[in-house]
């Protein structure tokens, strides 16, 4: 993701993002880094956090009420922030200090922050990490709804693919030092492919309603280091397409 944002140079190959080299179009990319949550000491409203996504990168002070044009722009900005918060269903708690919110609520507002500038591409790095199970399901559904309603493509990095599998259009497995498998979930998420990629037995089951479920071995492998030597990183990257 850092390569896509132009923050880290690629060690090989060429990268094109939104029709240009990486880093050129970052104002059209919404980015949600992998994070720890805001601790309870952070005394800033959720609204202000979302607003930073809109104009937090601008220099100078927002001078309230100086001329009708500025007032109009201020109003438009406030309205856009409210829209983005509404989109993630955060209107109830957006005016509370972000540190007092639960992990799921914080994550929803951060997604609103990434969305507030109407990006063409949304990069989500482990957005379900450190959320409890109901929130994982809810945030995954939320992201899926957003990418259908808004003209935005979503690229999501996830280690645990189960919560997002129902919504994913394409899967890219990065393992063994490169792109190891790419295609629709039905093509990639198979017992054979995953067992090969992870270097440990993995089973893919089909639920009664046709959903895929990935199940790991009941016990962790005895030799961790051995497994890591063979596959330095195993990451699934789900891409949900939009127009």
């Amino acid at each position, binding site marked *: 993701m850092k390569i896509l944002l132009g923050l880290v140079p690629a060690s090989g190959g060429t990268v094109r993002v939104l029709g240009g080299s990486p880093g050129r179009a970052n104002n059209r990319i919404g980015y949600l880094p992998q994070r720890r949550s805001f601790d309870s000491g952070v005394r800033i409203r959720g609204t202000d956090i979302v607003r930073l996504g809109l104009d937090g990168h*601008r220099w*100078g002070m927002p001078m309230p009420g100086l001329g009708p044009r500025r007032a109009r722009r201020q109003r438009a900005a406030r309205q856009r922030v409210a829209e983005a918060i509404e989109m993630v269903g955060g209107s109830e708690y957006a005016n509370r200090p972000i540190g007092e919110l639960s992990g799921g609520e914080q994550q929803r507002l951060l997604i609103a922050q990434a969305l507030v500038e109407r990006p063409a591409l949304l990069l989500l790095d482990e957005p379900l990490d450190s959320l409890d199970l109901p929130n994982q399901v809810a945030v995954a559904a939320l992201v899926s709804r957003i990418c259908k309603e808004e003209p935005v493509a979503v690229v999501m990095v996830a280690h645990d693919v189960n919560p997002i599998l129902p919504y994913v259009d394409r899967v890219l497995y990065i393992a063994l030092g490169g792109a190891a498998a790419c295609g629709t979930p039905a093509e990639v998420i198979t017992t054979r492919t995953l067992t090969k990629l992870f270097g440990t037995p993995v089973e893919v089951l089909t639920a009664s309603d046709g959903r895929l479920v990935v199940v790991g071995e009941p016990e962790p492998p005895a030799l961790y280091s051995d497994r890591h030597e063979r596959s330095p990183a195993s990451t699934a990257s789900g891409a949900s397409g939009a127009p």
Partner: protein
Amino acid sequence: MMASGNPWPSWNLLDDFREMWSFPFMVNAFRAGTLVAVTAGVIGWFVVTRKQSFAAHTLAMVSFPGAAAAVLVGVSAVYGYFVFCVGAALVLATLPFALAGESEGQSAATGTVQAFLLACGYLFVALYHGVLSGLNALLFGTFLGVTSQQVAILAAASLVVLVTLAAVGRPLLFASLDPAVAAARGIPANVLSVLFLVLLGTATAEASQITGVLLVFALLVMPAAAAQQVTARPSLAIALAVIIAFAVTWIGLGVAFYLPYPSGFFITTLAFCCYVVARGFRAVRGTRRAPAVSRLLGALR
């Protein structure tokens, strides 16, 4: 402590201020106090938000040997404050952990340096063979003997700090709260961190001259911390921090004029009271709103 005999307030505020301001040193004290309070209130909000209180404390400690060294070599202490504080801010900026905020292990290193600097300041004072009350004034502040030139320097420094903060405030806040996203949006977070430390050094040098080295938190942290307890709106919190800092400085100076006790004590005590009241205010409001209940309702929905 008072040179003016034994004044007593008439409790007519207008008359009392007229009496205080008939002394040029009190006029300068109020001018300097106002400048410092406004600057410290604004930058204090960023200090609390960035969790850099300990950096502020370290810079304040540095100002002590700074002022003592300046007096020792025979120049005004004002220069010592600014040179040492801004210099120390630049040194802190070269340490990788100072930019990223503070964590437990690194605070030990900073604490070690602080103690050494305090000792250096003590040595400079001893070498000077000055009057012992000079040491008290450096550590705990004084409002006596603020010169017009000092007020002018404070005004210039305040202007620089406030204008710079106004220019970089938003990206600085973004980078403080959300470094990874800020970097993706092209905000030079490291440059801003260094710049902020230099501004903090300047503000600390200012505050040290009024509250003394050991009591800078009275203006630099307490008002902003109290304001953040009351409101989570950035603009309102900054305004409130300035108002608190301004009020405690004025009241503290006024009380110290009539009572034979040091101004630093009054200013710090008032700021402390503000913080306690603000915490109480938040606790009371919190129970009334019962955040746990509303959070549960939100989860169910």
